[in-house]
């Protein structure tokens, strides 16, 4: 029986076909799926913030784009999947609320997350095969390592397979 593995906020997990891996309610956060087509092993990390070096309280590595992706790659490496075999699909980074004038970086955190995730993946030489990022709505994602398809569902919109 295939299971659906749920990943929480600032959390990660790995999954092997026929199981699927999912995270619910991505807002400005980003879900990064890393997968290997041959071994059908995949992993998902749900990050909240772009940069661990800018924050003092950074013990939880899975909270940040830079260290979160590193941890996931490490985990996949330990399962015998080489970084060179990994591809990525990413979703999230929305701007949930819009404010006319705002002194905080509330409105732009999604965009910053997108940039940070892409930069980190590029530095590791991991190609992004598909993405559904930005705009102003939340996303729930399910990844199937068998087909390598990422299903993105939203409130009041048709689901999307990328």
């Amino acid at each position, binding site marked *: 029986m295939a299971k659906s593995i749920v990943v*929480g*906020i*600032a*959390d990660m997990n790995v999954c092997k076909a026929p199981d699927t891996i999912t995270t*619910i*309610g*991505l*807002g*400005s*956060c980003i879900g990064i799926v890393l997968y290997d087509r041959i071994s059908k092993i995949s992993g998902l990390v749900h990050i*909240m*913030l772009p940069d661990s070096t800018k*924050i*003092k*309280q950074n*013990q*939880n590595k899975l*909270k940040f784009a830079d260290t979160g992706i590193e941890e996931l790659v490490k985990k996949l490496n330990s399962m015998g999947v080489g970084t060179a075999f990994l591809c990525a699909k990413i979703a999230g980074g*929305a701007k*949930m*609320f*819009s*404010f*006319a*004038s*705002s*002194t*905080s970086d*509330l409105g732009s*955190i999604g965009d910053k997350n997108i940039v940070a995730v892409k930069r980190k993946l590029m530095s590791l030489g991991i190609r992004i095969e598909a993405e559904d990022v930005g705009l*102003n*709505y*939340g*996303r*729930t994602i399910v990844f199937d390592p068998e087909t390598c398809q990422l299903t993105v569902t*939203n*409130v*009041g919109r048709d689901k999307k397979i990328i």
Partner: protein
Amino acid sequence: MGDGKEKISDNARNALSELGNIGAGNAATSLSVLLSTKLVMSPPHVDIYDFNALENIVGGPDATVVGVLSLVSGDMDAMLLFILGVEDAKNLVGQLMDENTDWSSEMGMSAISEIANILIGSYVASLETLSGLKIRYGQPSLCVDMAGSILSVPCIEFAKISDKALLINSQFIVGDKEINGFIMMVSEMHSYDVLLNKLGIGGING
């Protein structure tokens, strides 16, 4: 910083509870005047939540909710978030306008925004009166989406300083229609300390 931040003393919890009670109580009175109906408030909960547990309070991460967020600034920084389930939004708009008004229409949304504005305004006003702090609040912004996505906004602010979120949560029931709404105040720990100091309590831990 560190583990001590995740504890909250009984004194601090009681004081924040009472603030939430008075804040939400005033907000509810304004709403009851506006709707000319009876309104019942439940005592507020004050607790420190794990990010992943926060979503379950409003019905799980994939429940569709209406969220209205306002940024509070001045002597303390916080976010006030007003959350309604879809059914509750429908009933609230029905009570305020008439039953044929579609809650998701521009008119319905505008009505919900206005209600949130009044609630948030009276919440902030009572915080100011009680604490003597100068607090401003911004024009609220509305969003209909998954609870998880909406709550990720205050969670991200929290994530910068902690792995947990402190939440003052008030719930109310309007008239015979049972409209359940939540007003959450989420703030960074430092602002809670400022607020509690003003009230003569050492801080979140003392």
